């Protein structure tokens, strides 16, 4: 096995172009397990640990009115929990559920995206937040991939063989966000299923993400559209009133219906559908209560939503 250790990002891109079979290695929390168990024998490993930029996070896009956090692919989950819970609440909550403190110090979002397991904890939050993946190749430069287009199949993504994930751009939250995950242990547990919801009052949209309940991470689009419609119709963004219980129920049913879970060693498909319904109901209540209580005042105001309506 060849072990490639580029010192800079450009060297990494060149190495990947020359050896498209090289498997990128950063925290190693996934790939090293696979190699140790001999489940995978890559001909080459591309170690990205020398590239310090990948562990940086910066706030960008303020001038454009759509600020985002550019989270380097190797920013560890523990950093996201500690430093980015303000602008990226759902991703920070999700990061806090990843494995153990040791793993959170090593693993990052780039690895979750590269592996593209439906059980990756970051995916539902990235979907709900409307993230954009920064993929790059030596030949074609940077390609911005909306998260909706990123996952293409079970443990597959849209990266070309010569591309590496450099960062993920996650919009600064303009409204409350939540993340919730079911596991049969109270810590350090792989998801039976997971759900994230983000209110986007500026655009009047609602976005969601579902993990571990379909071949890929998915959004519950019908639930999003339904809820956005109810909020617009009721002028709820402006009135900040209580949500009709029937709407909450319908939203939860639509979330559950968006999943296509299987029975496996971690749980049954029926339980996953049920749990998604419960998580959708609860997380929607949490984000909406936060919005109503004005805890969302730190975010952009919801006036744009009126314009959308």
């Amino acid at each position, binding site marked *: 096995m060849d072990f490639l250790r580029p010192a800079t990002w450009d060297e990494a891109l060149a190495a990947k172009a020359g050896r498209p079979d090289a498997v990128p290695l950063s925290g190693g929390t996934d790939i090293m397990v696979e190699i140790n168990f001999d489940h995978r024998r890559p001909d080459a490993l591309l170690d990205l640990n020398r590239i310090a930029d990948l562990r940086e996070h910066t706030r960008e896009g303020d001038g454009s009115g759509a600020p985002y956090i550019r989270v380097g692919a190797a920013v560890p989950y523990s950093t996201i929990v500690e430093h980015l819970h303000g602008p990226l609440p759902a991703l920070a909550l999700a990061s806090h559920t990843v494995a153990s403190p040791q793993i959170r110090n090593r693993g990052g979002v780039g690895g979750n995206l590269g592996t593209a397991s439906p059980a990756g904890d970051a995916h539902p939050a990235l979907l709900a937040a409307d993230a954009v993946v920064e993929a790059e190749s030596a030949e074609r430069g940077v390609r911005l991939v909306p998260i909706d287009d990123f996952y293409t199949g079970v443990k597959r993504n849209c990266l070309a063989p010569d591309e590496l994930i450099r960062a993920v751009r996650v919009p600064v939250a303009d409204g409350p966000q939540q993340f919730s*995950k079911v596991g049969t242990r*109270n*810590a350090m547990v792989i998801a039976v299923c997971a759900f994230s919801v983000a209110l986007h009052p500026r655009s009047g949209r609602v976005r969601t993400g579902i993990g571990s309940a379909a071949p890929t991470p998915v959004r519950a689009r019908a639930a999003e559209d339904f809820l956005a419609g109810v909020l617009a119709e009721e002028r709820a963004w402006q009135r900040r009133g209580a949500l009709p219980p029937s709407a909450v129920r319908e939203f939860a049913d639509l979330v559950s219906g968006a999943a296509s879970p299987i029975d496996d060693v971690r749980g*049954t498909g029926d339980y996953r559908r*049920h749990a998604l319904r*419960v*998580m959708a109901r609860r997380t929607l209540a949490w984000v909406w209560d936060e919005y109503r*209580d004005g805890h969302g005042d730190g975010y952009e105001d919801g006036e744009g939503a009126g314009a959308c309506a």
Partner: protein
Amino acid sequence: MTATRCPEPTPTHAAASSAGIGASTLRPDGILKVTGEFAYSSDLWHEDMLWGHTLRSPHAHAEIRGIDVTEAVRMPGVHAVLTHDDLPAATHYGLEFADQPVLAKDRVRFHGEPVAFVAADHPETARRAAAKIKVAYAPLPPVTDEASATGPDAVLIHPGRHDHRSDAVPHPNIVHHQPVIRGDDGAWAAAKARADVVVAADYEVGMQDQAFLGPESGLAVPAEDGGIDLYIATQWLHVDRQQLAPVLGLPEEKVRLTLSGVGGAFGAREDMSMQAPACLLAMHTGRPVKMVYNRYESFFGHVHRHPAKLHYEHGATKDGEILYVEYRIVLDGGAYASSSASVVGNAASLGAGPYDIPHVRGEALALYTNNPPCGAMRGFGAVQACFAYEAQLDKLAAKLGMDRVELRRRNAVGEGSLMPTGQEIDQPAPVAELLRRVKALPLPPERDGGWGRAAAGEDVDVRSLPGGLSNTSHGEGIRRGVGYAVGIKNVGYSEGFDDYSTAKVRLEAVAGEPVVLVHTAMAEVGQGGVTVHAQIARTELGVDRVTIHPADTQVGSAGSTSACRQTYMTGGAVKHTCELVREELLRRGRERLAHRHPAWLAGVELVLESGKVCTHDGEPIADLVEVLGEEPIEIEAEFHHRPTEPFHPRTGQGAGHVQYSFCAHRAVVEVDTDLGLVKVVELAAAQDVGKALNPLSVVGQIHGGSTQGLGLALMEEIQVSADGALIRNPSFTDYLIPTILDTPPMPVDILELADGNAPYGLRGVGEAPTLSSTPAVMSAIRDATGLALDRVPLRPEHIAGHVSG
């Protein structure tokens, strides 16, 4: 040649001479373990060593039509490939029945059964060579349960079986069957007729794994005398040797075992794992061979707790007097016997629980199937029964409209009670008192105003809620419940087995100071023998400086570190041998120093304290070193517990157990009734330990046992596919054990009511808490949800969607 890194003698210098029995002296290996410095058996290393690997069956049941090792042998770096035909001597081994092939010959009987051994100069080479061995399997339908094991067309797992149980069993696919009958038929019918209230139900216990953290590992070194030295993590060095020597074709004295650093055991190291392959490969190649299982292989490399299906029926008067109990316990022993027969004996004899019930019709049996082999695990047959009978007691109390604890106390055994086997409990049995104590403890406070306020938006620490960091609830759906359970466990080996122990104690003067060396073959697997033995020696010989010799087979057998027996048995052996050393010392004193002080010949008791010989009222009459003189005293002696009897094959009658041990738990849980997630808020225990030789270790045992029981209640299960008998979750990703966030505060109340038969009156500690913890947690969840919950481990889907508002 670089020497093997082998265990060093453990000095246990006490900070004070008061560190005898009853003191909470600290473990000599504690800091090393916490800081990662402790050398486990997986850290063994020898210059020039090879690495062994096992090729295992991917099928639970198949014929082997042929094995082609050609490609594996040809791989560079490969030094040996062994199949069944290469075995030099005995081909089968086993703890109680020699029914397990060292390597499968023409048939594999469980998923993961060894088919070939490989030695290579790198572990990865060995693994890849094993993958190149071509085994032609013809899969057979697996036997998976009682119906397929004992039905009319059942395939025999061991055709032509011949062992000490085979004549007595109702079917060749039953390893052992043990009925227990108390009361004659007429009285039985009358008791059933008298019952005002009857509760009957079926229960199920999933397959728990011991999940020790240090996987199977060891190092075999061929010796110049044609023998072998094996450095190994095990529970019983001498029984390993007894099984190994015939397989290697060596006399026992040429098979020398030394205990290496053990990373937990819990029963999983009672059967052999890599002992035979490492030794066979070492003898075949003439090179040292190391083997280390990884976590995946470990799940296939040791026996598990028997999964069980149980049926119970209790009848009681309306006043809550239990008149009769009927039970049938079916344990799945898997493909090989291991210790199934003894597990059956425990399940049958302890199946009625710590209750004085005049009429009993019980039976337990273990099946041969193609499921993973099951054997010893902490609690050993008593765990499965305790879950079921305690669930029954809850249901009976509910039906009677009685308090759950009151019903238990009213029917509890006490000193002088008869067990269903007819054995009298001739020792303290404070079952009612233990229950009273856990019930009397203050309950952990509920949150001010309950969880409603948290749900209404107040800040909440999700770590204190079901789901924990997964952030599933801020108080929604949460209900609190409180549950109780109590259990009974035997201590030591039973049914007529003489599981003696041996200790060699040497007292000598070094640089003018008295020093004691304690040498036993006791496997220190974490239970704290290394601490307790030194405490005993200090107490008996009045010497501060005590060193524990590494455990090996150069001294007599210590028996197994199992069945809560080591403090009793090897502690007893150390005590007994120290007493013999003291007698010899005092004999020398009388001989040499009688003229100095009248007390020597006065016939009064002399004691050893702080390096001096003292009269009973504390007057020093001589220095120990002076009495000892130049010549050390070294004595090796055995200690035997009182004899027990086998259970009668048809009635189960017999004084089968050495000692009984009792623990009671109160569990407080919070349940997310919508999602089926559970947070154990507190798990309080009260246990009678006879005498706490090391109170800190005792509390540690109770905490550990309670946590392992909590794991069985809520998460720990090896899932085996129903059709293929294949293990589905051989990893810590999907075999879940409790994390610290799942482990609640565990107040422990220790009683010390001496058992007159035992050394210092002590009672074995480690297993009883594992019994009652599981049903206490389940009882609390029943209290919170109103559901019957007749299966462990609980899964979220057993609660979610089933709880009425």
